[in-house]
């Protein structure tokens, strides 16, 4: 791959436009950039959420994301990847996660972004705890996310 790879886990918010520009600045070979932003919802199953707290496994989280970035690079012709995942307390409307993929053509960028998000959901060691008026509780894993990740498995 002829482009930068950035993986960051941070408490601070990120600027989506700035992250896209960082991948495309001074390049004329990139024809497609896909960005996915995951944002904290204010309600879940009709219950109001006041905040999420994201916990992660330092060290493994970065390595697990890197493994999937490496796999994305081996599967699609990419010219740059940025993955940012926030940790700590996040309130509704705030960013949680960002995946940006750059390529010459859109198909590779779309597919790689979706692949990375599906694996971030199911195999990167992050856990969400929800705060609501009813109290706090850990978010349960979703079987739909497992199914979404499974479709990328090579048969």
């Amino acid at each position: 791959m002829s482009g930068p790879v950035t993986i960051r886990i941070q408490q601070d918010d990120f600027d989506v436009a700035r992250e896209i520009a960082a991948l495309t600045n001074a390049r004329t070979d990139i024809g497609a950039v896909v960005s996915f932003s995951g944002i904290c919802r204010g309600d879940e199953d009709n219950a109001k959420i006041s905040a999420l707290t994201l916990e992660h496994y330092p060290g493994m989280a970065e390595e697990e994301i890197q493994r999937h970035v490496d796999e994305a690079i081996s599967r699609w012709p990419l010219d740059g990847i940025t993955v940012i995942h926030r940790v700590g307390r996040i309130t509704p409307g705030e960013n949680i996660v960002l995946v940006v993929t750059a390529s010459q053509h859109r198909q590779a960028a779309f597919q790689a972004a979706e692949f990375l998000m599906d694996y971030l959901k199911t195999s990167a060691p992050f856990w969400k705890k929800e705060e609501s008026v009813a109290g706090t509780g850990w978010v349960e894993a979703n079987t739909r996310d497992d199914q979404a990740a499974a479709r990328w498995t090579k048969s």
Partner: protein
Amino acid sequence: MKVKYFAWVRERIGKAEETIEPPASVRTVEELIAWLSGRSEAYAYAFEKPKVIRAAIDHAHVKPNAAIAGAREIAFFPPMTGG
């Protein structure tokens, strides 16, 4: 070996990490879960549904039958909910 706990596994056990010395008869991840469960009610509560618990050895996901010999760090946690 060092053991780390995350999310509700950490909360139920009441600590984020510790150093343990299981007996030689404890050879796999699932045997380690069973051995830890016998330490106290808190551990038993954390591991009450062993099939739900995920494990990693030295930062890589492993299955319950994975051997723990030579592991520097073993982590136990619930299914992941990031992204």
